[in-house]
């Protein structure tokens, strides 16, 4: 069968099981948009290419399948650089297809020419410039394989216009046809190392399971629960791992780090063993590395060998898929005598392990003494934490929550009670403002059966709000709660605390733009909430709307800050808890 390169490309995407592509056409990608008309693949026409990338990320985060975005050459391609970097930092499987000027024009500074493979070299797991149409099916198959296997990540396939116009014979490669001699995936974990890790767990008096996004990527939540049962160890879930272990389980201490719970952060500081599972000792978690968890031995499980020992030396480093490794660890614990009820078979090594009772008692005491806290007074300014808590109470338990970056993101992570994986979509490592609206749109496309709430800041919202036009046009009924404090709030917080209240370029205004009018102009239903009493009724109204996007402009207290807080570069022993109860937020 003879096809054009463009037809082969679309057919290859179909072969990969792609159901939706987020994109925006242009000159160099024109030939590829033509066969798209005849394809089963849904195309969601975004209003800016950055939106296509983040939407594809949101889709990937909730479904576990790769997100796909398609853009044209030059500015189309550079507009998706931020999502690629975002996906690289958070290990999101993202496949971007970009148009390129014809091969004959490459290097001539042709119209809309840019060397996007060079630009994205360091922010993709790999990228390809396809110069022969016969390579297209194989390269697409390689791209999906690389994006989704091992440590997932973004890839980019750059397709010159003459390559998509040329004719080629159709084929679909088998796994053996992939030309990736340098791409290796980790094998099964070494039994000796797993055994050593299990022994460390059974020898520890104050263990903590330090769970990262890798557990969600590896679909290892079930295995993790078994590991917690067998080991009796408490769990902290990083920003990328919220939902990997349920927050209502008493063994879950919440998020650790810069804005983590006092107990999660302090538990790591006092631990004698950290079992890092798909986490990477990010600076937002560790604070000052030299003083991080000083008394802890470290077991580090990661699918990426380069993460082992990158920041913190591991006593036992296990390179493996998290699920495979956790299951192996569970088996080793059982062999050593642990039982799922947290007891031990008599006469086994597990029977003589230290009693974890004192550790759990200590954690419970800390939790009671250092809860997350805020105060919503009647008639007082509306507290953002109150909005998040109310939103959580009034929305279905399996609601997907999506955020941008800043204060609202931290409050959402702190106050949302997560029950299951893939219900939390956020920009972690990259810290990309404007992530929420397009990512929510993509999440809703991936999980149309779920309620999807974006919790956004007013600063973030202004960066990518135009994708609500996409949401309306494509009938993607996402919901957006803007925590509108009229400031670039996190920057304001730092200026208040560390720059002697010298506020430099952080004021945005609560009324400019008028978020309600703006949202309505984009085809959404929109509400404004100014007092605590209006919060619940308005959320209930919003939750009933399912035929179009909804935006609620919550006018929140500009003086409220995110606590607890470990100042940048400080030790995790120096947690600022904020004003005592009753002192108010300022």
């Amino acid at each position, binding site marked *: 069968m003879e096809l054009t390169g463009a037809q082969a490309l679309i057919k290859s995407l179909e072969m990969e099981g792609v159901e939706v592509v987020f994109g925006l056409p242009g000159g160099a990608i024109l030939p590829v948009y033509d066969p798209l008309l005849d394809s089963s693949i849904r195309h969601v026409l975004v209003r800016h290419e950055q939106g296509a990338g983040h939407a594809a990320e949101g889709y990937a985060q909730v479904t576990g399948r790769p997100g796909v975005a398609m853009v044209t050459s030059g500015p189309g391609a550079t507009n998706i650089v931020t999502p690629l970097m975002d996906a690289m930092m958070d290990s999101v499987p993202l496949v971007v297809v970009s148009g390129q000027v014809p091969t004959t024009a490459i290097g001539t500074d042709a119209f809309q020419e840019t060397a996007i493979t060079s630009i994205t*070299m360091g922010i993709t797991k790999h990228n390809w410039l396809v110069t022969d149409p016969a390579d297209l099916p194989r390269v697409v198959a390689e791209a999906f394989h*690389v994006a989704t296997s091992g440590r997932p990540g973004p890839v980019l396939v750059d397709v010159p216009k003459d390559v998509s116009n040329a004719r080629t014979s159709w084929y679909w490669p088998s796994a053996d046809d992939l030309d990736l001699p*340098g*791409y290796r995936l980790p*094998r099964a974990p070494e039994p000796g*190392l797993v055994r050593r890790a299990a022994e460390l767990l059974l020898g520890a008096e104050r263990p903590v399971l330090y769970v990262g996004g890798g557990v969600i990527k590896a679909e290892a939540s079930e295995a993790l629960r078994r590991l917690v049962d067998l080991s009796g160890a408490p769990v902290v879930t990083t920003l990328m791992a919220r939902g990997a272990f349920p927050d209502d389980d008493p063994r879950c201490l919440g998020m650790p780090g810069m804005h983590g719970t006092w107990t999660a952060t302090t538990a790591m500081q006092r631990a004698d063993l950290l079992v890092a599972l798909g986490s990477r000792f990010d600076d937002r978690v560790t604070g000052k590395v030299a003083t991080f968890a000083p008394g802890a031995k470290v077991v580090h499980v990661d699918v990426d*060998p380069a993460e082992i020992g990158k920041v913190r030396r*591991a006593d036992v480093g*296990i*390179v493996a898929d998290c699920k495979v490794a956790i299951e192996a660890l569970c088996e080793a614990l059982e062999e050593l005598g642990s039982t799922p009820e947290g007891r031990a078979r008599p006469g086994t090594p597990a029977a003589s392990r230290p009693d974890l009772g004192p550790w759990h008692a200590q954690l419970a005491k800390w939790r009671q003494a250092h809860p997350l806290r805020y105060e919503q007074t009647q008639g007082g300014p509306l507290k953002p934490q109150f909005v998040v808590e109310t939103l959580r109470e009034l929305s279905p338990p399996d609601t997907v929550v999506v955020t941008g970056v800043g204060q609202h993101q931290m409050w959402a992570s702190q106050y949302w009670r997560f029950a299951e994986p893939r219900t939390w979509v956020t920009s972690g490592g990259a810290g990309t403002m404007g992530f929420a609206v397009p990512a929510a749109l993509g999440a809703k496309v991936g999980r149309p059966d779920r309620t999807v709430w974006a919790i956004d800041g007013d600063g973030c919202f202004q960066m990518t709000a135009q994708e609500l036009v996409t949401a309306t046009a494509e009938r993607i009924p996402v919901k957006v709660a803007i925590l509108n404090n009229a400031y670039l709030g996190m920057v304001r917080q730092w200026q208040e605390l560390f720059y002697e209240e010298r506020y430099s370029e952080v004021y945005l205004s609560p009324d400019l733009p008028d978020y309600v009018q703006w949202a309505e102009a984009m085809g959404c239903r929109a509400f404004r909430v100014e007092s605590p009493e209006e919060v619940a009724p308005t959320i209930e109204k919003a939750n009933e709307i399912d035929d179009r996007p909804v935006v609620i402009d919550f006018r929140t207290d500009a003086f409220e800050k995110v606590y607890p807080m470990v100042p940048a570069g400080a030790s995790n022993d120096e947690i600022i808890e904020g004003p005592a109860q009753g002192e108010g937020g300022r």
Partner: protein
Amino acid sequence: MSTSATVHGGSRHHILSVLVENKAGVLARVASLFSRRGYNIFSLAVAPTDDERFSRLTIVVDVESAPLEQIIRQLDKLVNVVQISELAPEAAIERELLLATVRAEGPARVEVATLVAIFQGSVIDVGPDQVTVAVTGTPEALDSAEDLLRPFGIVELQRTGRVALPRLGARRRLTPVADRSA
């Protein structure tokens, strides 16, 4: 790409022999990785291998900029990097080529020719008042040759950076890093 006298045997430098796919942009990927992660390349030589699908990079890295293990593991993540071997200096044969144009008038011409002959090098071009010499050898030998040529007056000098292969007797001591687990 010129070397200094402290190179060889100095513990700060390690030689990585990196087999890469012979594809467009591979060298840029390697260079971009080193630049992005703040690793220093001391010298770099690229050459085809007997298999046209692959090229071999011989990279001398400065391990003061980052732990060798981390450099190797990041490098190994590049999809086009097929195999990485670390060549311990005592277990490797290293060679480098030096070309130098030196002022050599009258009797100096003979002196230069005698000098390079000691290093098994040769005069490969002659002008009225200058000669160009080629010397192949270990990086230290070339350091010595360079020092001894300098008093004549070096007009231009170019060194290739080293290439290396494991010593035959030491082959078993090679570390196939790419296949090594943590």
